[in-house]
């Protein structure tokens, strides 16, 4: 039977297991939305208020659920608005398929109304992208798009849909499988490399696991935790890996990097064997490369060969799916487990790290003002038993949310790590809440970044999503202000956020609950009330204005050159 392109799209989405689409209509996709109206039982469509937020919402949905997030926007400005969201997902390897409308094929290249070359624009920030020129290619391309998005190193894939391809008719054929001769990710680890890795670990006196976002995306958390516990190997993590290992465990020594824990950054400096799992050694993680893990042999597990030896030279490269590689390594280690008294031989190492942890814990000075760190601690105490999902915007609050909240399960921390996109958190929380309707979803925001996508309060209220937004309001673009304080002689150019809206009234205007906290004594009771509400809530917490995030490794310095409180 012949179907229209729009109908074929619906059939493909259902076969890919899609249940939610974040979208925004427009001229080039009006037929697709028309068709979508007849599939709302299966393909629930959430109307966002800005395309950037639509992609972030699909991204939050993907991070929280592990499924592919889907977004559908119109051509031209709809497509260009989506670019920041796509680049955000690309940097953090999040599986998305973004459909953009396009002008009819006969008009492509004519500077038609709302025409942009979105395939050209997004080429460097997608894993791959397609322009569908012929309806006969449509189902095959969609199948490939989902396959590429979720396999190998995941990432966003864009499919550009000209209007005439959507309105034209063609036979619907669902390809039985996907075969691409030019795309074959390596999942299975090389046994020789695993044996070399095991050899290093057997001899190691101070081994350390550094986990990154790959642990989350490959669902390696469980096997990694087992391996760390069995062989008594301490664990540290990048921002992207948070939740991959329980933050309450005695082997956990915290986040590494620019705002990493003293114990974690010291551990990296002192380790003799570093097992990096699913981390790309970004500059925010390593600090000055020449000083990074300088006493350490490095075992690097990553599914993307380009991640290996890109920034850091490696002794044992393992190109594989993180989960498969950790399972394989654990097997090889099991065969040699008797060669070493693991707990005993690592005892001094762990004790030394514990001294760093106890001697230099995360800290801040209480002085009667509400300290932003204190807010995160209070939120943590209130929700720690109910597996909350925390989404963040980008800035100081993001770092405090990474430091002071103890994540215990994967997919519970949604944050823009690589691109550092302000405006990510609110829509990501929205997507996360839709993916996880039974979990409590909290967006930790700053007063600057919340204003970058605050229009999504409308989407949240309209869809009755009980997202809790906690604004650490210091009336500054705090992270930039911190740099200005430390490195630019306190010249606070364009960082005071004067002319801020009244966030409680804003909540009211959108139909959400709003609370303001100005006194320390009100902090816990008001947060408690806000978090217990079944409704969307905005909490405006007036925090100490010029609090800084510490520890801090200034850009370009080594990880041991930390500024402390």
């Amino acid at each position, binding site marked *: 039977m012949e179907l229209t392109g729009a109908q074929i799209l619906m059939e493909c989405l259902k076969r890919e297991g899609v249940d939610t689409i974040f979208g925004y209509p427009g001229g080039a996709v009006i037929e697709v939305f028309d068709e979508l109206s007849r599939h709302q039982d299966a393909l629930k469509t959430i109307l966002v208020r800005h395309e950037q937020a639509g992609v972030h919402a699909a991204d939050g949905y993907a991070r929280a659920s592990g499924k592919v997030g889907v977004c559908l926007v119109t051509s031209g400005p709809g497509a260009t608005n989506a670019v920041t969201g796509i680049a955000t997902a690309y940097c953090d390897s999040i599986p998305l398929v973004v459909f953009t409308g396009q002008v009819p094929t006969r008009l492509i290249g004519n500077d038609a109304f709302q025409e942009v070359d979105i*395939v*050209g624009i997004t*080429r*460097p920030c997608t*894993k*791959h992208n397609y*322009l569908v020129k012929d309806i006969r290619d449509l189902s095959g391309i969609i199948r490939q798009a989902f396959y*590429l998005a979720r396999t190998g190193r995941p990432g966003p894939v864009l499919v550009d849909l000209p209007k005439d391809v959507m309105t034209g008719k063609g036979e619907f054929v669902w390809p039985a499988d996907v075969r*691409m*001769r*030019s*795309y074959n990710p390596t999942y299975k680890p090389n046994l020789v490399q695993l044996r070399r890795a095991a050899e290093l670990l057997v001899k190691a006196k101070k081994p350390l696991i550094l986990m990154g976002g790959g642990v989350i995306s490959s669902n390696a958390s469980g096997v990694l935790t087992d391996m760390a516990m069995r062989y008594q190997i301490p664990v540290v993590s990048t921002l992207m890996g948070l939740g991959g290992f329980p933050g309450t465990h005695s082997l956990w020594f915290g986040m590494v990097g620019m705002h990493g824990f003293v114990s974690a950054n010291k551990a990296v400096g002192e380790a003799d064997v570093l097992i990096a799992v699913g981390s790309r050694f970004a500059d925010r993680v390593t600090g000055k490369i020449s000083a990074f893990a300088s006493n350490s042999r490095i075992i690097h597990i990553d599914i*993307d*060969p*380009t991640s290996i*030896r*890109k920034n850091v030279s490696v002794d044992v490269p393992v190109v594989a799916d993180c989960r498969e590689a950790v399972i394989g390594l654990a097997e090889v280690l099991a065969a040699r487990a008797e060669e070493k008294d693991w707990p005993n031989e690592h005892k001094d190492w762990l004790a030394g790290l514990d001294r760093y942890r106890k001697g230099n814990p995360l800290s801040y000075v209480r002085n009667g003002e509400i300290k932003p760190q204190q807010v995160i601690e209070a939120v943590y105490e209130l929700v720690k038993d109910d597996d909350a999902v925390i989404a963040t915007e980008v800035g100081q609050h993001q770092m405090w949310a990474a430091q002071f909240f103890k994540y215990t399960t994967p997919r519970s921390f949604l944050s823009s790590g690589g691109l550092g996109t302000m405006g990510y958190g609110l829509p990501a929380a929205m997507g996360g809440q839709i993916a996880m309707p039974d979990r409590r979803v909290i967006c930790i925001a700053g007063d600057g970044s919340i204003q970058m996508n605050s229009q999504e309060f409308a989407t949240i209220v309209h869809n009755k999503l009980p997202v809790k937004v906690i604004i650490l309001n210091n009336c500054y673009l705090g992270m930039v202000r911190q740099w200005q304080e430390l490195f630019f002689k306190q010249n606070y150019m364009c960082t005071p956020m004067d002319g801020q809206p009244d966030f409680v009234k804003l909540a009211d205007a959108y139909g959400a609950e709003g609370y303001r906290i100005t006194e320390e004594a009100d902090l816990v009771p008001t947060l408690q009330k806000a978090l217990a509400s079944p409704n969307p809530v905005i909490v405006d917490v007036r925090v100490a204005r010029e609090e800084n995030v510490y520890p801090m490794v200034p850009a370009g310095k080594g990880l041991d050159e930390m500024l402390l409180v």
Partner: protein
Amino acid sequence: MRYVLSVLVENEPGVLSRVAGLFSGRGFNIESLNVAQTLEPGVSHMTITTSGDAQIIEQIIKQLRKLVTVIKVVDFQELAAVEREMMLIKVQADDSRRGEVLRIADIFRCKVVDVSLLDLTLEVTGNYEKIGAVINLLNRFGIKEMARTGTMAMKRSMQRDS
């Protein structure tokens, strides 16, 4: 260090810009690049000449392999290979100098493909070094115009013991 890479790609729209965009976006050099179809329909062959240290070249090769439309990348550094480039070069050659230019053309086995009262156009084939030598020698007569294909390469059938 100069490297020659052979890249097999799916012949679909945009594939050249994916490869070129990868080089420009990541700050890699392209010295020359040529593309043409192969015997297999739907597959094109690119030869890319680039430069960098070993770590950069490793990244270039890995990044190329990561492109979804790239089928295969061969690094000729590791292999015995035949390397050729063709150049058309128009040299000033009036009566007084024509003989000298023709002698040089003869030594390098160039073909004369066009001639006028004032200049000669030569077709030169050879590896990178030979092309460079011809340009150097003809420079003093005055080169009016030149066009080069960029390097093409092919693996030799007999390889050194490996």
